[in-house]
């Protein structure tokens, strides 16, 4: 039953709401929707109304009313179900049918009693609503014309009103219909104003939407350009840098014996500068890569990730006799390159900023919360004063001179950006000369998105 109803609804909507209008949901779309919805409910009501109509045939011998009723039902079915008829034509047939119905009722009931006039007003207002603003006055003109026609009909007895209960006088008719005409013209003047306002608002919204789409696209292009730029820069900048390092090297190996201490020192500075610039360029490239949405979610075994880190940094760890401990790490849905970057950067820092006389010891732990995973990486290193907690995450911001601790000041910025890109947060707790604990969270909701 429900299926038949929805099929019936779909059929009428398809006929009355052209898909070309649907694309931008302007006022016309809603006009057509309203019209379609009206049809959907009017049709069953038409059939229900047949019952009193058939009653009239049986007891009052008013067959013509039943005949008119059937004609109306036929027209309604036509505009609801016959395909490839313009919506405007359907609407016109509908409105004219309602007007005709009102005229008929006016003939067969007492015109001056005014009961049918409500029907005229409703027909007029409804037509103003479903048709374009520029036709708004036509429907009032039509009411005016019909009223004048009835005025003449009553005055000159053009129509036989004899079967009505009471005869109408012209004066009564003018008194009643003038009110109707006034209300109709009032509606013709006011209703289009509302639609005008709504139309303006909708077109404004549409324009904003179009502009938004355009700037979104432009931003995407810019992002791609920027990434391309970073890529090209990283490769093209390496080239001249290599020239500097290799020829400085050649200079010191071929002419080293002709140089004094100062000269050799100059060469070292030049070489060191080139090496540092290379690192900065590479780090910047890493930093710019964090924002790539192309990376997909996958199941990442953090145990394996950490074991892989141990292998990768085997030399460094052995040289510092460092210990990296953890108990049972989970396997989580996340973006593998990003989570790897975060762990690598934080662990690298733990190994790097160590106390000169103590072997680094790093503990890694994971805690499951309701909506997220919380990870902690604690070291026994230098520690950081609380006034610098925010600062260390800024790009190129360093707390040490590069001759003490190597680095470009990009690592923690990358870690922060990566964590935030995955929807988490990063922070730390630290005590100077005791050690630091970096915390970060990875929300589980991105896991659900995957499921």
């Amino acid at each position, binding site marked *: 039953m429900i299926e038949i109803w929805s099929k019936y609804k779909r059929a009428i909507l398809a006929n009355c709401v052209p898909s070309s209008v649907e694309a931008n949901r302007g006022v016309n779309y809603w006009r057509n929707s309203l019209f379609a919805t009206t049809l959907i409910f009017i049709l069953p009501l038409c059939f229900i109304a047949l019952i009193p109509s058939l009653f009239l045939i049986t007891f009052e011998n008013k067959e013509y009313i039943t005949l008119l009723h059937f004609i109306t039902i036929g027209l309604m079915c036509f505009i609801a179900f016959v395909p490839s008829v313009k919506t405007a034509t359907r609407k016109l047939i509908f409105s004219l049918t309602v007007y005709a119905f009102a005229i008929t009722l006016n003939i067969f009931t007492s015109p001056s009693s005014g009961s049918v006039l409500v029907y005229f007003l409703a027909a007029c207002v409804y037509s103003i609503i479903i048709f374009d603003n520029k036709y708004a006055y036509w429907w009032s003109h039509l009411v005016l014309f019909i009223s004048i026609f009835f005025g003449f009909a009553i005055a000159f007895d053009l129509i036989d009103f004899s079967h009505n209960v009471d005869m109408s006088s012209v004066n009564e008719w003018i008194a009643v219909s003038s009110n109707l005409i006034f209300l109709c013209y009032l509606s013709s003047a006011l209703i289009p104003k509302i639609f005008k306002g709504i139309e303006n608002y909708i077109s404004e919204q549409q324009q904003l939407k179009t502009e938004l789409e355009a700037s979104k696209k432009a931003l995407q292009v810019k992002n791609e350009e920027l990434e391309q730029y970073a890529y090209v820069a990283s490769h093209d900048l390496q080239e001249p840098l290599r020239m500097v390092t290799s020829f400085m090297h050649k200079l010191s190996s071929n002419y080293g014996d002709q140089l004094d201490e100062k000269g050799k020192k100059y060469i070292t*500075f030049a070489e*060191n*500068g080139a090496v540092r610039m290379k690192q900065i360029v590479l780090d910047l490239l890493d930093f710019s890569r964090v924002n790539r949405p192309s990376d997909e979610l996958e199941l990442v075994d953090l145990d394996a990730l950490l074991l892989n880190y141990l292998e990768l940094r085997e030399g460094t760890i052995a040289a510092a006799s460092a210990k990296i401990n953890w108990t049972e790490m989970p396997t989580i849905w996340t973006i593998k390159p990003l989570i790897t970057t975060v762990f690598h950067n934080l662990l690298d820092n733990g190994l790097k900023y160590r106390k000169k006389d103590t072997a680094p010891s790093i503990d890694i732990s994971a805690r499951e919360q309701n909506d997220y995973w919380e990870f902690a990486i604690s070291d026994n290193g230098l520690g950081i004063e609380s006034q610098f907690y925010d600062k260390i995450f800024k790009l*190129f*911001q*360093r*707390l040490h*001179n590069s001759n003490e601790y190597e680095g470009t000041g990009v690592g923690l910025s990358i870690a922060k950006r990566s964590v935030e890109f995955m929807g988490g947060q990063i922070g730390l707790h630290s005590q100077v000369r005791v050690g630091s604990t970096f915390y970060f969270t990875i929300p589980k909701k991105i896991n659900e998105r995957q499921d």
Partner: protein
Amino acid sequence: MSTKPAHILLVEDNEGDIILTLEAFEESKLKTEISIARNGQEALDFLYRKNEFTKAKRPDLILLDINIPIFNGHEVLSQIKDDEELKSIPVIMLTTSSNQKDIDEAYKQYCNSYVKKPLDMNEFLKAIIKIEEFWLQLTTLSNK
């Protein structure tokens, strides 16, 4: 007074730049004494005679880089210019940053001039000599 060498505090973390600046001062005829702070913390310690700088002398002129560890040049500058004792020392921002934001901020914090480090070696030497000529010869500095 005139025989006493001018005392300059150079706040700079790049060893190469330190050497270059020192050598530029060496080449000039003027007698200068140069102290070096390698990050923002050291600069402030030096000025307030804290930690390893308890015997530091008050500088006549400060050359301040922006991109330095711990406290950056802007932070050091605002500390100096907020301090009744220190604000009379001229601070010259000597930096590679040509970012207008850096320049505007430095002047807002009352830096005394802003000099971009020239990339060319000879230009760099000239710049240092000009700074020296203007601030240590032409200008009369406060001795408080």
